[in-house]
């Protein structure tokens, strides 16, 4: 039974011996099946979860620093302005200019005004975000022009009443017509549709709106920022229950584009210092996608370690189960071992025989586990609406570990079988 000359025969013999106790072998395999399955499934779920976060962050642009206006804390405005008065806060055009001029490594600064309004065409009316911005918005935020064109400097200079719609909004507003050249009405003003874009990333606006109407998230209308300023004014009226409140916000967001990722790290504290000097209260926040990305990667690593250890423990338990059964098998088959030794089997032949049996158990369990482990994430993602990614490396890892466990936990029972005294073994009842 030297390896090679008759390896297939040895494996076949191992399977045959295992088939003598089908239930026992199947139960033993279960440990490995669950172990391998949980390794693959857990890593797939972890991978999927972090993938979504990372993709979202990546699209914010790893070269960018995002500044947002936030309403200052409640106690701060209570003292200054009574209810119904105009509340002034947030980023200003001056901030944008100062950042561009003083912070080294800044290539461009993109100001944005984001106003929630209803948009109307014919009988159709939807809540949406009117985003006043500059033509290079497309280059900094991930946006593809699907039809027509985006905003131009001419639009900006002449404060043209033109707009660009997101594809989803366009299809809702114009279910039957071609939206290009049509006019839509926002807050009493008509804007001509000149283009349709598809945003690659919605996360950016998500926290800004903070509204309950989620469908408004991808209902964006882009207009020149000069138009936004002249049509909506600097003050934005908000109607709350029983009273009016006005907010004066110059810019809702400034996206600072840096020349490279190294510049991001040095520029971040500089921008913070700069803003602090010109703002009385903290009425802005910064988001550094690069940092978020690193945090996400760190989180993923921790996640993988935790999930990996849980799965590894279950594999270990499976391995111990195998060892337990193999030890029982050796005792049960002592007589057979004696006979084989009498018929010319060397110690290493006996070791090979029992080791092959253990490996057949663990690798067989591993194979079944791989199948279930690949199917489980698929079921999870359809049922729980979670993204899962089964990586080839996790499959190889799980399968490799199952094989290694077979050898690790098989070696002791196999050796104890081989070390039996043939005379004693033959006499064993």
């Amino acid at each position: 039974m030297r390896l090679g000359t008759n390896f297939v025969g040895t494996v076949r013999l191992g399977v045959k011996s295992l088939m003598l106790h089908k239930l026992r072998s199947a139960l033993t395999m279960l440990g490995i099946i669950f172990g391998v399955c949980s390794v693959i499934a857990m890593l797939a779920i972890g991978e999927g979860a972090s993938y979504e976060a990372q993709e979202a962050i990546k699209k914010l642009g790893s070269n960018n620093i995002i500044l947002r206006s936030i309403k200052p804390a409640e106690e701060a405005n209570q003292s200054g302005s009574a209810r119904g008065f105009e509340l002034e806060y947030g980023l200003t055009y001056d901030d944008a200019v100062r950042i561009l001029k003083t912070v080294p490594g800044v290539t461009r600064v993109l100001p944005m005004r984001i106003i929630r309004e209803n948009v109307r065409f014919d009988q159709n009316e939807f809540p949406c975000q009117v985003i006043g911005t500059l033509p290079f918005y497309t280059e900094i935020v991930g946006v593809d022009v699907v039809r027509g064109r985006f905003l131009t400097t001419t639009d900006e200079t002449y404060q043209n009443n033109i707009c660009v719609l997101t594809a989803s909004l366009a299809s809702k507003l114009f279910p039957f017509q071609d939206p290009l050249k049509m006019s839509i009405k926002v807050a009493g003003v008509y804007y001509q549709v000149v283009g349709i874009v598809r945003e690659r990333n919605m996360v950016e606006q998500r926290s800004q709106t903070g509204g309950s109407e989620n469908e408004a998230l991808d209902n964006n209308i882009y207009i020149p920022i000069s138009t936004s300023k002249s049509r909506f004014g600097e003050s934005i009226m908000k109607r709350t229950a029983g009273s009016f409140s006005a907010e004066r916000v110059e810019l809702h967001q400034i996206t600072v584009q840096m020349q490279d990722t190294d510049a991001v790290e040095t520029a971040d504290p500089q921008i913070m210092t700069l803003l602090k000097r010109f703002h009385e209260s903290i009425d802005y926040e910064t988001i550094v996608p690069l940092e978020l990305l690193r945090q996400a990667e760190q989180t993923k690593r921790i996640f993988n370690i935790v999930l990996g250890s849980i799965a590894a423990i279950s594999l270990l338990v499976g391995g111990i189960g195998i060892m337990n059964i193999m030890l029982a098998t050796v005792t049960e088959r002592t007589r057979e071992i004696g006979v084989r030794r009498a018929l010319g089997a060397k110690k290493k032949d006996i070791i090979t025989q029992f080791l092959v049996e253990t490996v057949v158990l663990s690798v067989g369990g591993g194979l079944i586990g791989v199948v279930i482990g690949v199917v489980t994430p698929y079921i999870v993602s359809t049922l729980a609406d979670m993204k899962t990614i089964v990586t080839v490396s996790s499959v190889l890892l799980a399968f490799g570990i199952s094989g290694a466990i077979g050898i690790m936990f098989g070696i002791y029972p196999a050796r104890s079988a081989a070390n039996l005294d043939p005379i004693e073994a033959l006499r064993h009842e």
Partner: protein
Amino acid sequence: MVASNLETPTKAPVIHIKGIRKTYVLSEENIVHALRDVELAVHEGAYVAIMGPSGSGKSTMLNILGCLDRPSDGEYWLGGDDVSKMPDDRLSEVRGKRIGFIFQSYNLIAQLSVLENIQVPLIYQGEDPRDHHDHCVGLAKLVGLGDRLDHRPAQLSGGQQQRVAIARSLVNDPFMILADEPTGNLDSKTGTEVLDMLDKLNGEGKTIVLVTHDDATASRAQRVIHMLDGRIDREVINRP
């Protein structure tokens, strides 16, 4: 007829045991001498029966003859090699190649078919059983089981199982067939069949060493060696 090794050997004996002792040291005061200075020479084609009450050293003798155990002292020449001091792996090889075992309880491997059981000793000699298919089928036919090749041991009667064991013992064409109470578990009719088969093999020139405590069984052998207290007590020559 009482005699020792009186025949003048025409050629070197296939089995030659010279001054073998086997001592078990259980504790300092308790030392068991299982074999004391045993001498035995068996020529090719001989049929030897070993008899003796339990505790006579018969089993120890069998284990040493079968290369399952090594003597404490002395030499054991089997087919031209002193096997008494061989390492474990070499002994395995000697068992596989030179000795064919037949056990009282048949000792077939339960999960294997008749044909596969016959092939087991071949496998341990590094042979591919497929190369020896005809040989193995021939042996199965020789013992009258040519039509049961795919049967499992559990599907066979005791006599049939013992015949499979005989076929298995022959597969590597050994120097000696070592039969340990081959009829002990069989009724007299099937026992007789099995013994007839051994007679036939002996007639074809196989050396047979048989351990038994049944006089009728022993009477079939040319020489009957009676053991007592770890020594060969007497030897009876039944026929030349």
